[in-house]
């Protein structure tokens, strides 16, 4: 595994920790490239013929496929290993973070002063984050165990990099690279002055934007304090000016019409049915006339054949990504309309991921991220 590029907040790994993380990474690459693809012949040769024998027809929905595939031994074995690999990610990053926590907290107390950090200890963590630890990160994004905790951020930095098998790039910022490239392509002449990234976690994406657009005022908000503390110190360590604040994206304290861009990167699927509409309403309120909203998230179910649709939903049932089940079928343009955007300004788009130069590709092609875009 090619390591993340170093910065002063990154938890350093001792010899064996580095090896253990490399193993988890390679194990996941093996699962993705060698074991997962076996689900296709399993389905077509074993599960589907049996289904047809029993019902006299093919499955019509991904839910029907789920009911039978989850009993297939090959699928179950892959699924169990995939779940284990996810648990092993966190297990492999905890030790180094735990050991260095006092040091990391100390560093984060005196970051630089290019950007800023505003925390709100009274902010309530949304229910949809307390019920279960999303993608199994122990303590999720918001748990503070000690004063000025940054553990959740430090774990997220290494953890998501291993999760993505290096796909987030050695700067852990591929999602930001994708939206930035997308925006430049859609609006080559735009000069946004004020940019907001909702659900920024450790600021991987917005920090990248700030590095590309040093003249713009870049803001990142999130509900989790430890990820924001870490994200702020990380951005400063990278020399980028980002203003982080602890707020709920559903209702922020920013003024009406104060941003040229309001965006998010894989935030939506970790919210709720009520919250997602609130996020769109809030995006509309915050945008200047002519401003651009871009919410990037995971692919929806429309147009996916039943087997693909089912396989795509593994994380819902096995990785605590519960709301993704609902997002899969939601009408995104309708959310925009309800938020106040005019029909002709609602432009659903998508942007492809790409293999990073230093990443081992494990499938034939990348991944298409839908971007719900609308102009106010």
């Amino acid at each position, binding site marked *: 595994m090619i390591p993340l590029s170093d910065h002063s907040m990154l938890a350093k790994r001792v010899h064996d920790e580095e090896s253990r993380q490399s193993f988890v990474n390679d194990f996941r690459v093996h699962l993705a490239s060698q074991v997962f693809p076996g689900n296709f012949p399993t389905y077509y*040769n074993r599960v589907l013929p049996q289904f*047809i024998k029993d019902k006299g027809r093919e499955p019509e929905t991904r839910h029907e496929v789920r009911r039978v595939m989850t009993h297939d031994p090959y699928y179950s074995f892959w699924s169990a290993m995939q779940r284990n690999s996810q648990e092993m990610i966190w297990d492999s990053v905890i030790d180094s973070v735990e050991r260095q926590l006092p040091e990391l907290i100390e560093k984060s107390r005196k970051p630089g002063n290019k950007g800023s950090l505003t925390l709100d200890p009274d902010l309530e963590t949304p229910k949809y984050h307390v019920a279960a630890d999303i993608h199994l990160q122990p303590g999720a994004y918001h748990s503070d165990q000690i004063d000025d905790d940054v553990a959740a951020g430090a774990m997220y930095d290494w953890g998501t990099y291993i999760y993505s098998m290096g796909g987030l790039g050695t700067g852990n910022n591929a999602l930001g690279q994708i939206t930035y490239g997308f925006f430049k392509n859609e609006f080559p002449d735009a000069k946004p002055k004020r940019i907001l990234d909702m659900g920024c976690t450790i600021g991987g994406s917005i920090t990248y934007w700030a590095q590309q657009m040093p003249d713009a005022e870049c803001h990142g908000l999130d509900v989790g304090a430890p990820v924001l503390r870490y994200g702020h110190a990380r951005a400063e360590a990278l020399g980028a000016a980002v203003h982080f604040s602890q707020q709920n994206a559903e209702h922020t304290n920013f003024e009406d019409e104060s941003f040229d861009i309001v965006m998010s990167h894989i935030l939506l699927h970790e919210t709720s049915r009520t919250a997602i509409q609130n996020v769109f309403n809030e995006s509309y309120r915050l945008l200047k006339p002519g401003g651009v909203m871009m919410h990037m998230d995971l692919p929806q179910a429309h147009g996916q054949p039943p087997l693909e649709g089912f396989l795509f939903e593994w994380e819902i049932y096995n990785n605590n990504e519960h709301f993704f089940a609902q997002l899969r079928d939601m009408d995104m343009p309708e959310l925009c309309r309800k938020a106040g955007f005019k029909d002709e300004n609602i432009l659903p788009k998508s942007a492809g991921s790409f293999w990073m130069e230093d990443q081992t590709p494990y499938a034939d092609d990348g991944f298409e991220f839908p971007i719900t875009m609308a102009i106010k």
Partner: protein
Amino acid sequence: MSDDIKITPVNRGKRPAFFDDPAIDQLMAIVMAMSAEMSVLYDRVDTIERLLDKKGTLSRDDIEAFRPDQGVEDERNDRRNDYISRLFRIIREERETLVAHDKMDEYNALMDELAKS
């Protein structure tokens, strides 16, 4: 100081069951954890061998300080991938059997039958 900070490696939320007997789920977690430790141990032995080759002697500090350069990391990646392939030989065999039958004969025959009825 770090003694009083413990990040508990458990997550909230129900753990899905993959097999009828929960003991199989637990055994799989144990086997995977052991596999990881074996790989860690192998890298450590590799470090020791490399240091001995180079200097003929070693200290714990040397081992801890050793970081694979790109060439060494590539070799280790290859070795790890071989190792993982060996671990999952039985799964590959199953997959290969399934692919060998991937003519969809049975499926097509069934569809023909259905079309007739």
